[in-house]
């Protein structure tokens, strides 16, 4: 053991920060709150770097058990941390990007009265997310999983005085909870089969226990996919994410772009053995990814709210990751998670700076001309946008997306349709990204900039912009250069993607195609939004229904209201009076009525009593004769 034995410090530091801020945050001054909030995550990030260096010199799988959590029968989960290449990549992103976003928030949230509450939730989030990816068993993973959900809820509803925000928070929590419930059923199923919830145990026992393609493996994998789809905002549980933009922008950057929403990708990658056992589940993951990336991409083209464009883009990019997972390109999915975390966090932080500078203006068509007024934001945003659009050769997004497209086509589990979906998605991505940049930064300045961001906001932008470009070169295509660091690094944990034989020769053709498509998208964007003024309005008027449909996220909200919300609220309203109580009230009513009816015979009139006696006597005599 080396530095890795201090792994428990990594989640503990943010937890301590959160506890301190919850207990005493009310009485602290803002600088102290900021140093605890950002400092704890910063220290955690430093620890990760130290551990990372130690890990690189001696890559292995490390298990650090802290204490026995539960021990009942076969249920024996510990609080144990599991470090391998996959979790190391995640904790690096979580703590490093997390620290930059905390630093940014120190200034961004400076005027807010809920300063301590904000950092407490953000620290708690980092801790939960770290536990999620470090968990050695599924119970602890679920703890982190629900913990990030809680923090997401609290932070989306951070400005709770606006009822819209509270609604968005509740929507996010409940929709993800539907997915979580599916996942939990999956966990129970795994436990019933393997008598354990230890991840290693399950993964090593599954191939011998379940046959390739067996239906039970499919069911288990699909249930886990349900949980993953909920957290990662994939079809059919994707519609909470655009509303989640109600939270403060740093939250959108950290939780709803860089880290939490990729938890589903992590889960599937972590449980890869299980998914490999079921071709049906693999195909489903791929199709879910492909469809999601398309519908979210199209929606992103029509949004006018800066943050909603980015939100749909996030859904779409995670769709790419799912697509990669579905074709068995595990490393490609994680690579795209890695690059996406940097450029999407950057874009969100840039968006936050813009929105702050423009008096909380969200509508991109009321922005414009910011290129000159916010030059640092512009340059960094451009770097992020180029990466999102996958500008060939110079951006990280190009390399990670190219890798996915390549395996979607050439991979053993890939198919022409998935590839075409990815390609169309690339076009759409380039198009909406270009639109975003042009409308926001070019043209006529519609709103005056009131305040420029300080160094604590621009510094994270600069660092992230640099990384958005650089990290791509960690993994370049085989035919370019011999540098496949990511897939090499992950090789011990994730199976390598298998490609059809004889297809390698065409790799350059595909790369060329992808590059052309991206440039085409950028050109169309330029043509529609810059070169020919008024054209986009014309297109919008030409297809009003389609535009509206895309703008509303394809009507999923309305559909779910009709299918689920209405029936449940109807059922609840129907049972408001507690129908069962009606039965007892009925019994009581009958008893009282009978009592009244019989009481009326006791009227004190002698004639009635005599009559009663006579009738009774006659009845008895008759019965006696008859029987």
């Amino acid at each position, binding site marked *: 053991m080396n530095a890795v034995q201090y792994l428990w410090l990594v989640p503990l530091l943010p937890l301590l920060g959160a506890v301190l801020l*919850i207990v005493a945050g*009310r009485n602290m001054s803002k600088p102290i709150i900021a140093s605890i909030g950002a400092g704890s995550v910063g220290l955690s990030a430093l620890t990760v770097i130290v551990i990372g260096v130690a890990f690189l010199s001696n890559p292995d799988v490390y298990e650090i058990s802290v*204490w*026995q*959590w*539960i*021990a*009942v*029968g*076969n*249920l024996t989960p510990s609080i144990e941390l599991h470090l391998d290449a996959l979790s190391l990549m995640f904790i690096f992103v979580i703590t490093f990007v997390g620290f930059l976003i905390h630093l940014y928030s120190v200034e961004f949230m400076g005027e807010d009265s809920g300063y301590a509450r904000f950092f407490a939730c953000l620290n708690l989030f980092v801790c939960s997310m770290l536990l999620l990816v470090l968990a050695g068993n599924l*119970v602890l993973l*679920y*703890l982190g*999983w*629900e*913990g990030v959900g*809680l923090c997401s*809820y*609290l932070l989306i*509803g951070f400005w*709770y*005085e*606006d*009822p819209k*925000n*509270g*609604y968005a*928070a*509740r929507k996010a*929590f*409940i929709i993800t*909870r*539907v997915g*979580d*419930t599916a996942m*939990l*059923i999956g966990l*129970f*199923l795994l*436990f*019933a089969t393997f*008598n354990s919830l230890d991840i290693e145990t399950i993964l090593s026992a599954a191939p011998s226990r379940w046959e390739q393609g067996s239906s039970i493996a499919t069911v288990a994998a699909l249930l886990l996919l349900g949980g993953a789809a909920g957290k990662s905002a994939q079809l059919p549980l994707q519609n909470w994410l655009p509303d989640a933009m109600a939270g403060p922008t740093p939250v959108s950057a950290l939780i709803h772009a860089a880290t939490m929403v990729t938890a589903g990708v992590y889960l599937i990658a972590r449980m890869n053995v299980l998914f490999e056992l079921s071709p049906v589940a693999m195909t489903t993951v791929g199709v879910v990814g492909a469809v999601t990336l398309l519908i979210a991409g199209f929606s992103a083209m029509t949004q006018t709210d800066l943050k909603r464009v980015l939100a749909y883009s996030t859904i779409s990019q995670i769709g790419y990751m799912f697509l990669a997972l579905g074709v068995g390109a595990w490393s490609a999915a994680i690579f795209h998670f890695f690059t996406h975390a940097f450029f999407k966090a950057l874009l969100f932080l840039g968006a936050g700076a813009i929105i702050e500078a423009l008096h909380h203006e969200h509508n991109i068509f009321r922005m414009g001309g910011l290129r000159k007024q916010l030059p640092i934001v512009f340059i960094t945003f451009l770097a992020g946008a180029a990466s999102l659009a996958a500008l060939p050769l110079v951006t990280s997004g190009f390399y990670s997306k190219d890798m996915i497209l390549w395996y979607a086509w050439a991979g053993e589990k890939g198919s022409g349709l998935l590839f075409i979906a990815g390609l169309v998605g690339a076009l759409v991505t380039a198009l909406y990204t270009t639109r975003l940049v042009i409308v926001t930064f070019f043209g006529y300045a519609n709103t005056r900039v009131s305040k420029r961001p300080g160094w604590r906001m621009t510094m994270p932008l600069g660092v992230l912009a640099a990384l958005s470009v650089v990290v791509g070169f960690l993994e370049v295509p085989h035919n370019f250069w011999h540098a496949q660091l990511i897939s090499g690094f992950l090789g011990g944990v994730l199976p390598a993607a298998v490609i059809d034989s004889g297809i390698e020769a065409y790799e350059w053709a595909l790369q060329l195609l992808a590059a052309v498509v991206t440039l085409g998208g950028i050109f169309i964007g330029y043509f529609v939004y810059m070169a020919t003024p008024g054209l986009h309005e014309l297109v919008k008027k030409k297809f009003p229904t389609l535009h509206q449909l895309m703008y509303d996220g394809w009507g999923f909200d309305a559909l779910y209201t009709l299918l689920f919300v209405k029936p*449940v*609220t109807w*059922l*609840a*309203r129907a*049972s*408001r009076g*507690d129908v*069962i*109580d009606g*039965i*007892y009230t009925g019994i009581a009513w009958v008893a009282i009525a009978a009592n009244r009816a019989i009481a009326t015979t006791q009227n004190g009139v002698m004639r009635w009593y005599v009559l009663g006696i006579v009738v009774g006597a006659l009845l008895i005599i008759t019965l006696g004769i008859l029987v």
Partner: protein
Amino acid sequence: MPDHILTYLIFLPVLAAFLALFIPRDRSAWFRVLNLAVCGVQGILTIIAIVRYGSETGDLRLIERTEWFSLNLGTWGSLRAEYFLGVDGLSLPLIALTVFVMIIAGISSWTITKGVKGYFTLMLILNAAVIGSFAALDLLLFYLFFEFMLLPMFFLIGIWGGKRREYASIKFFLYTLCGSILILVAFIGLYISGSVPGDVATHTFNIMYLRDGSNYVPGSVLDPSGTWLIGGWSARNWAFLLLFVGFAIKLPMVPFHTWLPDAHVEAPTPVSVILAALLLKIGGYGLLRIAYPLFPDAALSLSWMVGLFGVVSIIYGALTAMASKDLKRLIAYSSVSHMGYVLLGMASATQEGVSGAVYQMVSHGVITTMLFLIAGVLYDRTNDRMIENYSGLARIMPVYFVVVLIAFFASLGLPGFSGFIAEIMVFLGAFRSNVIHLSLAIIATLGLALGAAYYLWTIQRMFFGKLHVRGAASTEQLTDLDLREKVMFLPLAAITLILGIFPQLLLNYIDPFALGFVSLLTGGS
């Protein structure tokens, strides 16, 4: 002292109730202090009991056993009742819970100003009866304590309750009485059929004797090897059914639950706390202590039904909670939903499930105490608990809001809190059970999503949004928690967290009990 610790625990409050008779009725503070002092001493006694009990075992210990009385009934043989007390991994946690909740309820009772003397006297009697029920191991003794809870509760609701207190208290009384009668019939059957070992003529109420199938008079009604049929069904099945329904009314289980919301809505806060946190547990305890172990054969064949009603309670309770307009009624229905997990867990007849059921009883006891105190905080300030009358309370009552968040999220089963540990064990047990059907377990998981829905909706309606108060209340009345209230909430919140993070503290006791319970159950089939 060492040998009679359970007796001290039970009779200390009785003694204090007797002392209370001599305190002038206008000395309110004296009664409060007396009650709290008794609970405090009980707390110390409980700690001593836990230490003396030791750990890592679920055995019966701290046993006190003497003959209570013995009657010669001629041809009916002779009746022997014992003063038989003892605790195991099931009752020890519940007794600790009782003492703890009684302390909290005692502090909460300081707001009671009417008829303080009678109120605290009844509270002390109730205290003794609850602990007695958990400690008694003789059916007659158990029944005595069980019935002794009924009257204090009836008066506490009927005199110190809200507007419809008389309706609620009579409803409570009738339901519980019906349950008691069913239980009594089963007890009489047990008494007739059971005997002390080696002496067929001497009948017994001793639970430990009655657990052993060889202690039944051959050919008697409930003889395990007998062939008594009533309506085509074995008499033992009928007896189990009687006990099941009797205790299920107390639990309460849908469809016998409708006394609960009314009782809660009318009862004063501390009485609600005791009702939900402790009295409901007697129902679950009775099933685990008496119905299941005494009729393992019948229990195993009817467990599907227990599980089915458990799931119905989970879902129905959650749906009705969602529709409730009164905060306290919502919490009452959430209790119905959460006690459903207790049924589901025991019905699974697995070690995980049974441990989960017991854990859920303790965890729900703590969480529901918080929930009812939360409703009480609001009612104390404004006399209004209608959810729709409040909005944006988070701004003016921040500490209260934090407490509400903790309680609600603990109750909806967020990992890290005690409720999650209980629920996950119940579900894991239900999923790998071969007694109940998988589909039941799957349907029950819907309760998780519904639970999230009604709690979050409540938070949104009452705490989010612009500050706004409708109805008779005004915003000036809505002050944040005072010191006394913080003192009540702090240990409660701490305990749900501790039990969520270090559940082994409790499971070390519960798990061995569950193990023995399951082997008794499956060994008997």
